[in-house]
């Protein structure tokens, strides 16, 4: 929407004449918002971007980013709170608050501060449901969602390709392969006890990324079609091998097998939250370090080199960070697909392509998204694997992207 002011072209050319108009408009605060309105001169129809505007551009942008982060954080906070109400038995908001209150009392009493009367039996049961069963699951969902989304956002930027995602390009199934090995092979289980599943998941994901990267690389470029094909092939391979190992060693424990392969949060516990927390948070923050580099690389790798970015080094670091983030998600939830594809896309529509806001906003949005996808999975008494829900919503989205790309190619 453009605001029209009546200034003659000759007046505008003398910027001292134009400035008062623009500054006056700026002062009405109706003048300029980042990426939004622009001022139009009625007579010439030319866009004007002058005077007072300049001084507000950066400020507006920072304000805008802060606002986005605030809203996204608020949504996440509310999601955590509300999603704990969802489950096979409904627990109302007041009971949730009560449970949180009791939980805090428990914490305080551990510290030697006695507060409040002893709770009744119903309140104790509800506290148990909320704090020990649902809350860890919701928080684990948030961590997994954030990890997958931030990983997807970084990969899309890195490959300059909106169809990249840890699931699509095989990182997730590589991690699954690692987890499976750690979990099922008797020789490795000793090691696994010491190193934890996370480490094996990292190794698996790095193996997958190494394979895909080298299969897809054509000269110094990574063409989109090669990346997707190599990713799908690698993904199939690791999925199949993992399923085979699980099938042979778990002796028909279908619930367990499905939860790994399709991706679910059944096994959530505070221990799992602890295991996932540090790697996810560290990777997300580390990726933020490279936000500006990713921006520059979107305009081409050589072009990024010209503005002083050590592209080859940065590329490898981002690949490793994105893999570790996705792997630590897979280690606690199995392979949940398409979160890393859809979330950054949707977020980009809202916040624009700048990675400095896109990465944190994607992490927050991914967390909220997976919380609600899992709430949907829990609310049916059947306990649908959440990976199925994300796949059912994600695949049509993927096809939509393909069709758009097809149109772009057809018209090119």
């Amino acid at each position: 929407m453009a605001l029209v002011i009546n200034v003659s072209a000759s007046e505008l050319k003398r910027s001292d004449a134009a400035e008062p108009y623009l500054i006056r408009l700026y002062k009405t605060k109706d003048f300029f918002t980042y990426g939004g309105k622009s001022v139009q001169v009625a007579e010439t129809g030319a866009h004007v971007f002058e005077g007072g505007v300049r001084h507000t551009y950066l400020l507006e942008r920072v304000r805008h980013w802060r606002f986005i982060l605030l809203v996204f954080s608020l949504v996440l906070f509310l999601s955590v709170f509300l999603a704990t109400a969802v489950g096979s038995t409904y627990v109302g908001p007041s009971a949730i608050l009560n449970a949180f209150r009791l939980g805090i009392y428990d914490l305080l009493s551990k510290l030697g501060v006695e507060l409040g009367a002893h709770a009744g039996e119903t309140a104790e049961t509800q506290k148990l449901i909320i704090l020990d069963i649902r809350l860890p699951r919701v928080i684990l969902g948030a961590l997994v969602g954030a990890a997958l989304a931030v990983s997807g956002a970084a990969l899309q930027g890195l490959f300059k390709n909106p169809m990249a995602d840890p699931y699509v390009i095989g990182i997730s199934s590589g991690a699954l392969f690692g987890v499976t090995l750690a979990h099922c092979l008797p020789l490795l289980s000793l090691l696994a006890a010491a190193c934890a599943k996370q480490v094996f998941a990292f190794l698996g994901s790095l193996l997958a990324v190494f394979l895909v990267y080298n299969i897809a690389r054509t000269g110094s470029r990574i063409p989109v079609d090669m990346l997707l094909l190599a990713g799908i092939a690698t993904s199939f391979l690791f999925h199949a091998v993992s399923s085979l190992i699980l099938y042979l060693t778990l002796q028909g424990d279908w619930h367990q097998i499905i939860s790994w392969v399709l991706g679910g949060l059944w096994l959530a516990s505070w221990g799992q939250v602890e295991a996932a927390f540090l790697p996810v948070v560290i990777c997300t923050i580390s990726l933020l370090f490279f936000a500006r580099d990713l921006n520059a690389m979107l305009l081409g790798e050589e072009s990024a080199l010209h503005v002083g970015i050590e592209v080859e080094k940065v590329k490898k670091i981002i690949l490793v960070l994105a893999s570790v983030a996705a792997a630590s998600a897979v280690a606690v939830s199995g392979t949940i697909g398409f979160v890393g594809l859809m979330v950054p896309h949707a977020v980009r529509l809202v916040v624009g392509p700048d990675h400095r806001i896109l990465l944190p906003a994607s992490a927050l949005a991914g967390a909220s998204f997976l919380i609600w996808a899992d709430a949907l999975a829990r609310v049916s008494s059947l306990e649908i694997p959440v990976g199925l829900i994300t796949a059912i919503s994600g695949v049509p989205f993927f096809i939509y992207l393909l069709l758009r790309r097809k149109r772009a190619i057809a018209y090119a």
Partner: protein
Amino acid sequence: MLRVEKVSFSYGGARKILESVSLEVDGGKLVGLLGPNGSGKTTLLRIISKVLQPSGGVVFLNGKKVSELSVRELARELAVVPQETAASFEFTALDVVLMGRTPHLRRFELEKEEDLRIAEECMRLTDCWHLADRPITTLSGGERQRVFIARALAQEPKYLLLDEPTANLDLRYQIEIMEIIKRLAVEKKLVVIMASHELNLVASYCDELVLLNNGRIIAAGAVREVLTRENIRRAFGVDVLVETHPLTGAVYLLPVNGQQHTALHS
């Protein structure tokens, strides 16, 4: 001052892309790099900008070896306007130009008022400030080229390399871009090297020319000395008439096509 000393390059094979290329360019000079396809123009620019490592020889920027500068240090000295500018994500033109400030900013540092002032100045200089809030994907070829020149300038370089900056532009934009580049070289005392196929355009704007063929310099110096009938025949294998522009006094070339050529000599 930019000095290229006996630079050679090959992709490992026997064929040399560049062979012992040497040149020297002073500040304030606009130098045109000419030569047929595959003569090594782009390779030379990529070696100067450290994208490629030469297999022999050295490039000096103001006495310092390019190979000993970090990528970041180099980016504060030297900027490049690439031949093709990818633009698939919707950054605004101003965002793109602000990216040119990258080598001057620390990792988490946000652009400051000063950076914006520089971006504005560069965009005014290249006549694209009015496009500032437009997504880069919606700009025409000429507009986008100007935005990328502004981005290069925002790096505050002393050296500017351009790879066929006027390719795919219509005549008006070609002249516009050349006017801008010329002005930059003079006003900002930049060393400007541009690779180009537009011989007539280059002839009327450049101070000096370098003519490459098969990876070797076959002529270098003032426009009139380089653009001779003999040199053009050697480099491009075509016959031209070398004339003087009646109004500007610049050299211009008129191709003589096959039939006319026969007619001329029979």
